[in-house]
């Protein structure tokens, strides 16, 4: 998939690891989440991963699951449609503009409920660059991939993936490959898994796309460690924890940005 231009792939700097920050759409409310998105962008995030609130977040740990619950319980609810509209406002009218590209992290059922072609249309209209769908492995993605041209679909590679599966995952991915650092759900961990370097190497053997590592990366020290191994560092729960306060988000993102290299935002 590397032949077509990719806003996501292009957002990975040549001279240092990219910083990808996950924020939950609509948490704790729409206005605050928009302020936090802008704070993360202003503090140097290279890519924004925007989480779509969902009622059964199978791959997420307690911090993100709780944020999704709070977002959903607002009057009128907050789901895929509202998240895409939020992304559109954040990105603004100028797609080539100043904001980092947005990749939506959504579970599959909200997209199916919306209708896959309609979901793809809305995402394109909003300027969304890509999607990450944790419960949609490549074999389950055929219907989506036929309607999602112009949107990168980022697939996940796991420590349990065989080389054969890594070839499938890497071959199907657009934008970058999301490397899950360790088994389990999202959330903070005390240390980075010891086999991570080897896993990233095994993925790189199958693709020229950048490889970004997420799940369990929360501190600037961990981000620096992962930045030495991978092309991108994904931080989620640690940011979502601060999402009620845009200034706190900016502070952490700034520290993470310094940690991955090239202190200038």
């Amino acid at each position: 998939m590397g032949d077509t231009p990719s806003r996501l792939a292009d957002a990975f700097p040549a001279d240092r690891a990219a910083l990808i920050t996950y924020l939950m759409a609509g948490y704790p409310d729409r206005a605050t989440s928009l302020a936090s998105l802008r704070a993360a962008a202003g503090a140097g995030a290279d890519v924004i991963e925007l989480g779509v609130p969902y009622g059964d977040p199978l791959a997420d740990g307690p911090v993100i699951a709780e944020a999704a619950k709070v977002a959903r319980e607002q009057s009128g609810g907050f789901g895929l449609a509202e998240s895409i509209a939020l992304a559109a406002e954040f990105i603004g009218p100028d797609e080539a503009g100043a904001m980092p590209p947005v990749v939506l992290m959504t579970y599959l059922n909200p997209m199916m409920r919306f209708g896959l072609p309609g979901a793809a249309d809305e995402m394109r209209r909003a300027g969304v660059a890509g999607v990450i769908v944790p419960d949609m492995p490549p074999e389950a993605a055929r219907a989506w991939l036929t309607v999602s041209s112009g949107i990168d679909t980022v697939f996940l590679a796991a420590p349990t993936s065989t080389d054969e599966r890594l070839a499938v995952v890497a071959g199907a991915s657009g934008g970058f490959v999301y490397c899950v650092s360790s088994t389990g759900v999202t959330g903070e961990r005390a240390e980075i898994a010891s086999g991570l370097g080897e896993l990233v190497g095994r993925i790189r053997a199958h693709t020229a796309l950048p490889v970004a590592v997420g799940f369990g990366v929360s501190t600037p020290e961990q981000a620096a460690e992962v930045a030495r191994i991978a092309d991108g560092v994904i931080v989620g729960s640690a940011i979502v924890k601060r999402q009620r306060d845009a200034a706190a988000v900016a502070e952490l993102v700034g520290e993470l940005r310094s940690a991955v290299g090239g202190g200038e935002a």
Partner: protein
Amino acid sequence: MSDVLLPSAELAYSAPDAAGFYGPYGGTFVPETVVPALAELAAAYEQALADPAFTEEFAYLLRDYVGRPSPLYRADRLAEAVGLGAVYLKREDLNHTGAHKVNNTIGQCLLARRMGKKRVIAETGAGQHGVATATIAALMGMECAIFMGTEDIRRQALNVYKMRLLGAEVIPVADGTGTLADAVTAALRHWVERVEDTFYVIGSALGPHPYPRMVRDFQSVIGTEALAQLEEKGVGHLDAVIACIGGGSNAIGTFYPFLSALPADQRPLLVGAEAAGLGLESGRHGAALTKGSPGVLHGFYSYLLQDDAGNPLEAYSISAGLDYPGVGPEHSYLKDEGLVRYEGVTDAEALAAFALLTRTEGIIPAIESSHALALLPRLAAELGSEAVVMVTVSGRGDKDMDIVREAGLGG
């Protein structure tokens, strides 16, 4: 039914396909971390099926440990009370541990052992699957952890105590409504973390491939025995077969042999009883097939109770075992194909059927199974007073004493 077991060229029922799809339903919609484990499981299951040592040990344990075959009992006083010609009860309530669940946990734990796993986990709603898993884990010397919603722990305290006696750790799940769907999610999350040393024993014919097929196959002993028993008893004609549906494992285990062994024109009417809770229009029920729409939950595509944004809705039933917003994918396929009919049964109807079987036959059924029994009067009205009907009594009602007492039965 002397000729019913003969092979027929008209048999067309062959679901699922190699990827675990029943028509559009089923499949594998899970995080990548467990995809390799599911592939490994599917391969190990195929090998086990082809290995006589596995199938013989499964059959041996069903016979000498569970006490199979379970009787097919002609319930004459019940038949008279509901106005049918004859009612046959397939007595899964007489199994060791008191329900059909153990058929499946033996199969899966044998497979776990074969795959070298020493630790099993399971979700449970009413506690029957938890008890059945804890029982077989004790039998096989395996470590066992059971995920159970806090509301279900409250409703089914006796089963919680049993599981602990058997050596299992019961892990309370306070997320969501603290019921079965939350327990499944918690167990899946845990499995994603511990996939390398842990086998997830799913309790119903649902979840990602190959679980729905594997659970169906292990539970098919119900229908296979029933077909042979009907023949032994000289029951030449059967009008209908009923089973209750939560995830749908006792129902698919009952129906599948009828679907695979009989051509369509010789099959009895197959009817599944879903939980209609406080009524199908009340918004408080567990009737995914009757009131839901297709979607993905817990790793598979099937009918699902969901909101406009695709979030699973909270299910409700007086019965903890039917209190689930989804349903096994094969039932979705059978519904769309018109091969099985699905009807809702309310809490009140189930309680009335519970009381009726207890008083007419001296058999106290599980509140889940009572949903199946509640369809008997409806079928009598539809099929007439000469009709012959079989009902799978999936479990016994000891666990439900507090619930029926709260509901005011027995004074």
